[in-house]
Structure formats: C-alpha cells, structure tokens
C-alpha cells in the first residue's frame, strides 16, 4: 500500500472515531500541505531513497509537546488556544526524517493523571471494552497517543512518561510503550511536569516501529541541559560493546530478574497469570529466571507523589496569563495592593487534579514540611536507584566512579533485565473514575503507577508490551490483555526493546 493510501486511511479513522474515542485535541485536517509531503515520500520510496523509516509516516504528538503549526494546550484551560512560537526538538527531528505530524493527542492536564480523564477536552476512551461492553479508561497520561495507535489513527505516537504515563496507557490500550533512559531524548519544547522525571516516550503497534522512532530521536541536543552529552553516549556504547554485554541474546542467554516485592496482593489474577506465563516462556527459551529484591520499591510510589507534585508546583507557577495563555475576565485581585495577583486566572484555568498536585507540592516544599517530605523523598529516590544498581549486572554508566560502595558490595545478583507487570490490574471502567461522584478517590488512580514509578525515579529504560493470557476454556476477552514491563540498566535501551520484542503480542492459552 502506498504511504498516501495508508495516511488517508489513518486520517479517516481519526475523524471517524473522533467522537467515540476523543483521542485527539487537534486532529490533522483531511486536506493540507501534508498530502504533498506524503506524495514526495512515496516517490522517494519508489526510488529506493527514503529519508528514513518514518518517511511519509503519520506520527501523532501528545499535546504537551510544542508544535509551531498546531496549538499546544496541555489539555488545560490555562493554555486554551495557545500556540507555541517554536517546535520541540523531537518535532523538528521527526519532520527532518520525513515524518508527518499527525495531530495533537489528548492527555491528562499537563500529564498529571493515570486515566486520561483530567482533560479540558473530555476523557479519552479506550478502544477496547470489557466483557460486559462497558467503556474502559485509556490509561494516562498519554492516553490519547496510546488510543490513536491502538485504533489505527496514526502510525506511531509520541507521549511523555514521568511516572508511567507512556507505559500505563500502552498496557491498557494493548500497544507497545517505551520510556527510554532519562536524558537520551531531548526535552526542549516538552512542557515540563516534573523535569527530573520527564522523558519523551514512544507508542507503536510493534517494538520495531518504536525502535525506528527512537533511532531518530536518540541524539544529544544542546538546548536541553539534561540531554546526555555526545561524550557520555560514546562511553555508554563502549561499555555495552564489551563482549559480556554484546553477547547477550546472541550467544549467551539472559539472566532475568523477577522483583519479589512486585508480587503484591492487589495483583489481579489475569495480570499474575500473564506475568508467570511470560517468565515461563522465556525460561523455555533457555533464559534464567532469578528472584531479586528491590526493598525500597514499597516507598517508591509515595516518594514519587511527593517529588513530582513538588516540581509541578514550581513548573506551573509560570502560568499567570500575563505573557501568554488565558487570563480570567475582570480584575484579578481583590484590588488591594497585597491582593493575590493571579488567583482568578489560575483558579479557573487549572483543573482539579492539577490544582491538587500544585497544592501538594507547595506544601511539601514549604519550610516546615521540606525535611519530612521533599528531602525524605529524595533519599528514597536514591535508595531506589541503589536497589536497581545492586541487581543489574551492568554498572550504571553515569554513577560516580568511586565511592559507590553501596552498589558494589551489596550486589546480590547480576541480572540483565527485570520483568514485571506494567500495572497491577486491567483498565478500570470509565464510569468508575468519572462522573459526578466517581467511585474511586485520587489515591486509587495513583496506585496504578506502583510498578512504573520505580524505573522513572531511577531514570531507567522500560518498555510495556501487550501479552494475552486467557483462562482455560474461555475465549480471550479484554481483561486477558496485559502489559508486561521490561526494565533495564541505564543505557541498556536496546536490550530492553529486544526483550520486549520476545514477548510482544504473545497469546498464552491455559495449557
């Protein structure tokens, strides 16, 4: 099929399913300059000279990544109708590779949420339904990107992953979702939620398509001060070229770690079944399965929900309606000299979940709470990192060369990757998390991030791939589709993707 026909099919889906799924805030118009660009890509492909594997492909972009030609709203009232004066580096990189920016996808406001229901533009709906035909949540916060991929509305999509926001919706929607090592993909033009955790992630129907995108974006960018330098990238690659690492999966089997702390009582049976069957499948292929302990994991979620809101409260202080964005009608203070300057603007512009996290973060950074919350959470974050360093065979390439005796001495195991579920359960019903009196508290949504947050705190590469494990005697239904997560040492992104590929799309029966 030509690239143009493929693109037209995807765009038709975008428009046909706009009402039903609400995956896009700004869809790509049916006609436009992009049509000519795809035709040119088709010509290049016929001549055997495509710009890249993405030449002429439709890539959707989460609406918290800046685009000059389309609005960037972060699904927030405060940036309603905002158009950025510049492109994010990732957008430029994609366009340079011939890709077509295929609209801006819906999300939880500023990336804060696990269900993609906290949007000024309404919730995203999962393209799957449960056995009784009820609507399911898409997962968040990159729910629009995940659903756009799952429902054939684009070829691949970019999301952002701060605590699991790419992996969780990938697991719920049944796509592949990849969060690279922190600092490999540029964040210039990616609107910050929690800078020290934010990464651009990639969603695709296959790991292979995700890898194609990653190879285009995996570059140093001098505009992003947290982008890993060219020098460090070389050093990381050199370490991985040592024979004991280069031989993994080619001539030597893998040692696969199973974190025992992840086997929690809240795990639903279908998820546990998919996890076990995935491990058994890999063992059958000759890989070693080894239980490992990550003791700090049980504090990771709490630490995340202190640190991320703290950074968010700081990052979102800039939205005051003075220089850009929306300003509330009328005078915006009480008229007194000491009045609050932007209270109306911020009060009406931000949604409830964003306001909740700003308040949480403001509290945990306040002088009286700082030590007990922010500092304590940073300590937990360091422990989580040390936990991972203790179990991986590869050392962390960016860890301090000397003095990290903790990691060196307590090295109890030496695994190549960790495998665990992406989420403890299958997607909840949309009706359970929205409506006037949702049957769940914000904390219930936070719990869904329990398995994704540790890799975010440690900046490690992680991928979620769809695995189906049906119970005996039954046809597989939506609840049998589970996301299985592969986590690797910092910089081991390629291995993580390869292991994901071994599991991607597997269907396990009961036998």
């Amino acid at each position, binding site marked *: 099929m030509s690239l143009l026909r493929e693109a037209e099919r995807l765009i038709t889906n975008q428009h046909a399913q706009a009402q039903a799924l609400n995956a896009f805030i700004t869809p790509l118009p049916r006609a436009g300059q992009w049509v000519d660009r795809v035709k040119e890509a088709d010509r290049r492909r016929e001549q055997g000279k495509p710009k890249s594997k993405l030449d002429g492909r439709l890539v959707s972009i989460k609406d918290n*990544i*800046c685009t000059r030609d389309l609005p*960037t709203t*972060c699904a927030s009232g405060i*940036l309603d109708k*905002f158009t*950025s*004066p*510049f492109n*994010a580096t990732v957008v430029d990189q994609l366009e340079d590779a011939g890709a077509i920016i295929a609209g801006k996808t819906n999300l939880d406001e500023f990336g804060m949420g696990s269900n993609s229901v906290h949007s000024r533009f309404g919730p995203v709906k999962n393209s799957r339904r449960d056995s009784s035909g009820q609507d399911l949540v898409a997962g968040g916060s990159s729910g629009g990107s995940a659903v756009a991929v799952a429902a054939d509305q684009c070829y691949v999509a970019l999301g952002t992953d701060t605590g699991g926001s790419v992996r969780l919706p990938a697991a719920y929607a049944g796509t592949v979702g990849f969060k690279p090592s922190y600092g490999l993909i540029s*964040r*210039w*033009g*990616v*609107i*910050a939620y*929690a*800078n*020290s955790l934010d990464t651009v992630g990639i969603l695709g129907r296959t790991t292979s398509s995700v890898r194609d995108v990653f190879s285009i974006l995996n570059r140093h960018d*001098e*505009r*992003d*001060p*947290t982008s890993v330098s060219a020098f460090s990238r070389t050093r990381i690659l050199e370490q991985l070229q040592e024979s004991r690492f280069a031989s993994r999966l080619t001539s030597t089997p893998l040692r696969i770690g199973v974190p025992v702390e992840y086997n929690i009582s809240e795990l639903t049976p279908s998820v546990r079944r998919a996890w076990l069957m995935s491990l058994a499948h890999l063992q059958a292929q000759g890989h070693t399965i080894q239980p490992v302990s990550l003791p700090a994991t049980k504090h990771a979620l709490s630490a995340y929900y202190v640190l991320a809101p*703290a*950074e968010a*409260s*700081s990052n*979102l*202080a*800039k939205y*005051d309606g*003075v*220089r*850009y964005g929306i300003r509330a009608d009328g005078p915006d203070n009480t008229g007194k000299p*000491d009045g*609050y*300057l*932007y209270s109306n603007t911020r009060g009406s512009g931000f949604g409830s979940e964003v306001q909740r996290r700003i308040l949480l973060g*403001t509290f945990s*950074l*306040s*002088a009286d709470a*700082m030590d007990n919350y*922010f500092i304590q959470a940073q300590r937990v974050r360091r422990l989580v990192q040390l936990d991972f360093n203790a179990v991986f065979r590869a050392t962390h390439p960016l860890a301090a060369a000397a003095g990290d005796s903790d990691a060196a001495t307590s090295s109890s195991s030496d695994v190549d990757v960790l495998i665990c579920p992406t989420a403890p359960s299958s997607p909840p019903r949309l009706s359970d998390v929205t409506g006037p009196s949702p049957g769940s508290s914000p904390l219930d949504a936070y719990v869904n991030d329990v398995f994704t947050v540790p890799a975010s705190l440690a900046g490690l590469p992680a991928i979620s791939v769809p695995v189906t494990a049906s119970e005996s005697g039954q046809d597989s239904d939506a609840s049998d589709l589970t996301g299985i997560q592969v986590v690797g040492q910092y910089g081991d992104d390629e291995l993580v993707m390869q292991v994901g590929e071994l599991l991607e799309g597997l269907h396990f029966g009961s036998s």
Partner: protein
Amino acid sequence: MLRPWLNSGIVRSLSLVQRPLYPVLIQRSFSSARTLHATPDRVPLRKQLKQEAKSLKARKKQRKESEEASRQTWELTVGVEIHAQLDVAAKLFSKAATSTSDAPNSNVALFDLAFPGSQPEFQAATLLPALRAAIALNCEIQPVSRFDRKHYFYQDQPAGYQITQYYEPFARNGYVDLYDYDGIAPEDGDRVRIDIKQVQLEQDTAKSQEYPPSTQLLDFNRVSHPLIEIITMPQIHTPATAAACVRKLQSILQSCSAVTTGMELGGLRADVNVSIRRRGEAPGQCSYDGISGLGQRTEIKNLSSFKAVEDAIIAEKNRQIRLLESGGVVEGETRGWTIGSTETRLLRGKEGAVDYRYMPDPDIPPLVIGEDVIAHLQENLPTSPDALLAQLTGPEYGIPIEDAKPLIELDDGARLEYYQDVVDILHTLQGDSGQSQPAALARIAGNWVLHELGGLLTKADRSWDAEIVPARSLAELVHHLQIKKITGPTAKQVLAVIFEGDRRPVAQILEDENLLLRPLSRDEYAVLASAAIALNPGMAMSIRSKNQLGKLGWFVGQVMRMGEKGRVEAPKAEEVLRELIFGAKR
C-alpha cells in the same frame, strides 16, 4: 579649604532651600555689602544662611548626643545584603543581550519569558566577573555549587520563581576590611573586618513602570540579567560603618570590573537586617548565620544610596529602641525606606512572610569551577582599592590621602587611569633631567588632575571625559611648569584654553600666544622692585625696622602686577626685594 569641585556642589545644594536659584548666585558673587540693603520684609540672605547653618549644626550635635546616649544603652547589630548587576554581555540563562538602554522588550529569549517548553542555558562567561568579585572579597570559591528556585508570585518574575544559589552558593567565607579612611564610625577604630557569609549568582527581575491608578508596564530586558548577591555576617554595630561597608563593597566590585554601574544608577541595591539588644543584659534569643545572642531582627529592603543605608538603619534602630522601651516587642518584619523620610515603614508583617519554598532546579546541572580558572583570575585581578591607596600615598606617589581617595573613586576609576597616564608621560618628558623627585612630580600631577582640571569640570558642569584635556597635553603643561618655561598662572590659563577645545599642541599654544617665560634679568627685577619701594617707602621702612616680613609678600604682589604679564617669577622678585629693603644686612 574648599576643593573647587566641592564648591559648586554647595551652590547647587543651596537651591534646595526652596528659594529661586538666581538671587543666591547673584548675591554670592557680589560683595556682601549688598545683602545689607535687602528689602525689610525679607530676612537678609546671609543672616538666613547663617541661621540655617547654625540650627543644622545644633540638630546634628543633638542627634550625635542622642545617638551616643542610645549607643551606651543599646547595642546595634547589622548585616548587609548587596545585589549587584554583573558586567556581562548575555543573560544568566539565555544568549539574549543584557542592556539598559535598548528599546523595551527587545532583548528577550524564550526562557527569559518562561515560555512553556523552554529550558535554561547557563552562560559560562557570567562566571568571570562573578569570580573576580568573589576573589576580590577574599572568598573561598566552591568547586561545586548549585542553582535553586526561590518561589514567589509577582508580575516582574515570569517563571514564578527566581533562580538563585541558596543551598550551595559558589563562594563562601570571605571578608572585607574597612579602614578609618573608609568612613567607619570612630568607635570602630582604625580598621574593622566584616566577614562575608556567601556570594551567590542569581537572576534579576523585569523592570516595572507604574502608571497609576491601574496600569503597569513591564520591560523584560532586565529579566535574568546576572546578579551577584553578597551577604555579610551580622557584625556591624554602627550605621556609619554599615554605609561604609556598602560603599567599600561597591568600590571593590568596581575596581575588579565585576559590575555595570554603582548605586546611583541602580546597578547596586542593598538590603539590611537590623537588631538591637540592651547592653549588660542577658543575651538575646535570636541567632543569625551562626551568631547567637542577638535580638529579633527586621529587614529593610531595597536601599538605593549610601545615605539611605545609614539613615534607614538609624531610623529603624530608634524605632526598635522606642518599641522596646515602651514595653513592646520587635517583630520579624520586612520594612521599607523612602529617601528623605525619618521612619521606616512596614512592608510585610511576620504573618505575611513569604515562604520561598527553595527547591534545587532540576534542569540546571551543578556548576563545577576548576582550580585553573580561579588561579588565572587571581593572577590577573586588578589592584584592590586598598592597595591602590597604599600605593598612591606611599613613597612612589606621595599623594595626601584626601586626594588619593577621590582619585580612586571618581568616574569608576577612569580618573585614576588618566592620572597614571599623565604621570607616566611626565616621567618620560622629564627623562634623566632629574629636575624633580618622582614623588614630587606625581604629587604635582595629582593636584592638576584633581583640583585644576576637576575645578574646570565642575565650573562647566561637565562629566568626566579623558579626551576633554588629553593626558599628553596636561603632562606637557605640567612639564613646562616644572622646568620653569612657564609660570603657574600661565599654566592655568592654558589649561582653560585646552579645556575649551583648543587642540593645538601645548608647545604651539605657548609659542603662538607668546606665553613662554622670558626670564627677567636681575637688573629688570631691580628696576621693578625699586619702583615699588619708591611708591610705598613707609611700608618698606616698617619692614626693615620692625622686621615685618609678612608685608614682603605684598611687595611681591606689587612687583608681579607691575611687571610684564607671565614674566615675573615670585621667588626671584622676593629675593631682589629683600636685598633692596634690607640691603646692608645681606
């Protein structure tokens, strides 16, 4: 003696006495007799001035006495924070240019406006002036320092936070020495050392312009201009020393080219914290920066002149004393000061205190400063003002301290540079002739640069420009004077001509205008002197008989007047007069 440049300053300040300027000037320039005939409904100006001076003196004395009395009972403790704009081409976290004069909002990068998705880009060049300042302030440069966010909402602060160095500043543990000549209080003796707690890098805010009642315009050109904040320990105990400390810090910052402009032009702002405790009682309950036993302190923000620093501290100290003496309690408040006022005013009460929620900035990597950079800057640091002062007053230059200080401080060091040029050229001109000792030459040059040239500048109300009278011209003029090719009055006259724009070389002016000294012969002097004595025989007689040598000078003046202009040299005239009057005695 009033320095000429001080003189006209006094004339200007007189106009502040809310009277039309011209009568002051007119009456000052004519004989004082006129003022006696002033209209009866007006108090004669002279009397009025006298009365005003008298009452001012009385007020000052009274204030001094009450200050002394309160000092006996209460100990004042002050710490100072200085914010100074660094002299750099780009902003702290973007490549946008720093500027004070460009069209508003013309130098603004995305990050300066806190555009969503933009990120900071630390400009390493900022470090050079910042490090020079920290080295000049004797600080320990930290090998690793970090940036933090200080949160508060205000429209001049686009990100909702200021990026600063709160937890780990780049320089710590410095000090500044204040000497008696820096204007410290007499009770501080010859020298007092004030420790510097830390020096940190931070962003400036945007400039607001208020158009009451409801309009504010914002100019983001200034936003993120790199600043350093210098925090002293609370070790200052008098208002005068606090002002001297700020003045000294400014002169150090300027001498190492760290900052753009001084306090007068807004390039430097000071906050002070003030506490008092009763002497001889149990120590206070408060502790700041590791110094305990202090009283509750208040902070006075945004002082923009040295005088404001001193006056605000006096006012705040007295407010706290009144409060405590009437049984009240000092609250940890933030207060403000209006120039010319006598009271500090409340800006923010304790309950309104801002919690800045300092957080490490997650986007900005740590600042790592290498030993090599520090060593290089240390080697190339310009001489400190104290060392300059020692040099100027030392054997090489021999300038009196009251001249050396203005030479260093005037015109951001440009006057000193000019002076040194003049001295250098003079030395070359003198060559090996050995006419004068080097120090004598330097002292004479100092007098001409500061007082003669300074006087012309003040009279013409012009600001400093080294090109008005090129250093070479002044040096040649002084050289001609030194080798007695011209007289002092001629030199002054020629200086004025050059000042007015005459660009002919000095030698040519002297030639063209026939100003070179053609020395009178002994006989010519004798003729002039005899004539003078003949006109005033009685006076000559009384000099001779009563040995009234003081009157000899009058005769010298007469001879000068009678002789051809620019040719009579006073010492020679006196010599001849002596011989003629005392005659036989010699």
